[in-house]
């Protein structure tokens, strides 16, 4: 695979509200190859969500170019993009009255289907998605009865039902406890191995990012200030620059480097 699945070149992007423009991304260059796993870190407002939006084609660029599988994303229809790219938003309220399997089936929307039903490909995709997301047992449950962790698994299944080559997730671990958060990341690794899907995850937890991601990208004020393996990226200078916090570096028994924030307790 020589062609990266996603390539951003000098991308500028932002939001326009009532008269003035807020530029969030200022010149971002990024290439992600097929099957890569990538964690995106950065302070609030640094542009992480915008970065995902640009890669999903839902946020248009003001400058620069975005290519998906070699083709400019602007030239692709939403449905085309949705067949390759699945996005898990920060929060998603599931509509009442549906069962889990029905919601996951909505992931089949971008794929041309029958007029009035679901075909065997859809059935298979949904079954695979539920299994891969470890949500098989939830298939018949009403969505309003799910716990937070269960809901997260269902959302992953929903994304997987699209049969994407690129999976974008915006802070999926924020509301999860340690067990569920690590479980989710483990699932993502498993998915990448099983389906070859490219995974880009925005994380806020430096420790989790350090222990999971083979590649970390750090954003600061709309620019990428670090891009590489965690050992190289997760250094105190970067943490100070990106987050404005002082950190201590620790090395685990397994030899991994983690950053531990310094909490000024005044003692």
């Amino acid at each position, binding site marked *: 695979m020589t062609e990266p699945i996603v390539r951003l070149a000098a991308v500028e992007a932002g939001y326009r509200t009532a008269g003035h423009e807020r530029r969030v991304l200022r010149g971002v260059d990024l290439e992600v190859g097929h099957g890569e796993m990538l964690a995106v870190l950065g302070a609030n407002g640094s542009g992480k969500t915008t970065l995902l939006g640009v890669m999903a084609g839902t946020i248009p660029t003001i400058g620069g170019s975005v290519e998906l599988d070699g083709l400019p994303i602007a030239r692709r229809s939403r449905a085309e993009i949705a067949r390759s790219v699945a996005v898990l938003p920060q929060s998603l309220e599931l509509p009442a009255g549906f069962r889990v399997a029905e919601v996951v089936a909505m992931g089949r929307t971008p794929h041309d289907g029958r007029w009035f039903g679901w075909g065997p490909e859809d059935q298979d995709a949904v*079954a695979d998605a539920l299994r891969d997301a470890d949500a098989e047992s939830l298939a018949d449950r009403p969505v309003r009865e799910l716990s937070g962790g269960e809901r997260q698994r269902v959302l992953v299944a929903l994304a997987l039902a699209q049969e994407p080559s690129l999976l974008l997730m915006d802070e999926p671990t924020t509301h999860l406890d340690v067990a569920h958060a690590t479980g989710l990341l483990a699932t993502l690794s498993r998915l990448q191995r099983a389906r070859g899907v490219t995974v880009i995850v925005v994380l806020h937890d430096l420790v989790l990012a350090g222990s999971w991601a083979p590649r970390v990208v750090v954003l600061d004020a709309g620019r990428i200030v670090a891009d590489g393996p965690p050992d190289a990226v997760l250094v105190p200078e970067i943490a100070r620059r990106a987050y404005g916090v002082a950190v201590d570096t620790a090395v685990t028994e397994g030899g991994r480097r983690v950053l531990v924030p310094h909490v000024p307790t005044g003692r």
Partner: protein
Amino acid sequence: MSATTAVPSLAFGPSAGRSALVIGGGALFVLLAATAAVTLGTSGIGVGDAVAIVVHRLTGIGPVTWPASAETIVWELRLPRVVTGMVVGAGLACAGTVFQALLRNPMADPYIIGPAAGASLGAVVALLLPVATAGWLGIGLVQTLAFVGGLLTVLVVLAIARGRGGTPVVTLLLAGYAISSLLSAGVALLIFSSGERLAAVISWLLGSLAGASWPRVAVAAPLIVVSFTLLLLRWRRLNALLLGEGPAAHLGIEVEREKRVLTVLAALATSAAVAVSGTIGFVGLVVPHLVRLVVGPDHRLLLPASLLYGAGLLVVADLGARLAGGVPVGVVTALLGAPFFLWLLRRRVTGVEDRP
């Protein structure tokens, strides 16, 4: 890729059996309602005769054993009225379902962004115009202006609510409310100065199928049928919109375009319905809710079911209206619909069903 064997009985969406039951039941309901409405009435035509008349007219079969007046009543009066009722009921229920999903508002009905107010204004203007032709009130003019008024209003509301980033649902609702109020004020003013035409105006506003005729059916039915057929095909997009506009976009839907298309299609059906039968209330609001209680929120089944039960219900309501002395059907739907709606609200408030 085939892993269905790993998950033995994965079936999503309502089971095939359930779908068949609901759709089949709906079709049966419509058929029964239509049959009842064609065979029952104030003039004592026997059930057998009524059926025989319809068969005779459609196929030419059978000796003619009934008086010409009976044939006129069944074929020229009752049958067009029944067909109009089915088509209007289906159109309104379908439009109501679509607006409830699109606007993510359970109180939405087909009139919420203005077609009723616009159609009313058009119709009342036509009713009050002193038409020079032989003293009649230009009946064709009423339907035409009502349809144009309804559709135009929705397009105006869409245009007003459209911003640079798209058409936010809340803006659409507010613009619809504002325009509706404005147009309703115009209607009220016209009512005030309607003089002897008041009865005709009120009757139209209440909604009635009494003026149904084959020429009207020929004009309105294709519009409504085409609209709801196209809407039926969009069930996946309607489901996705229930997740929210962002997630729907990620699922491949051109959200802004889809909102416009859905609005225009639903407005077409609504305007055509209102043009031929006045502003019949509650069908578009209550039928989707009732059907959703039984069938669930999946539009794959909800839309066709709403359509069928809306058609059947309006035909039944009109039969009741006829037998109750020629009351406008809008009165019957309001009398039945309002208590139903209150009952639905109570269910919601007391937490019987899932809260949105």
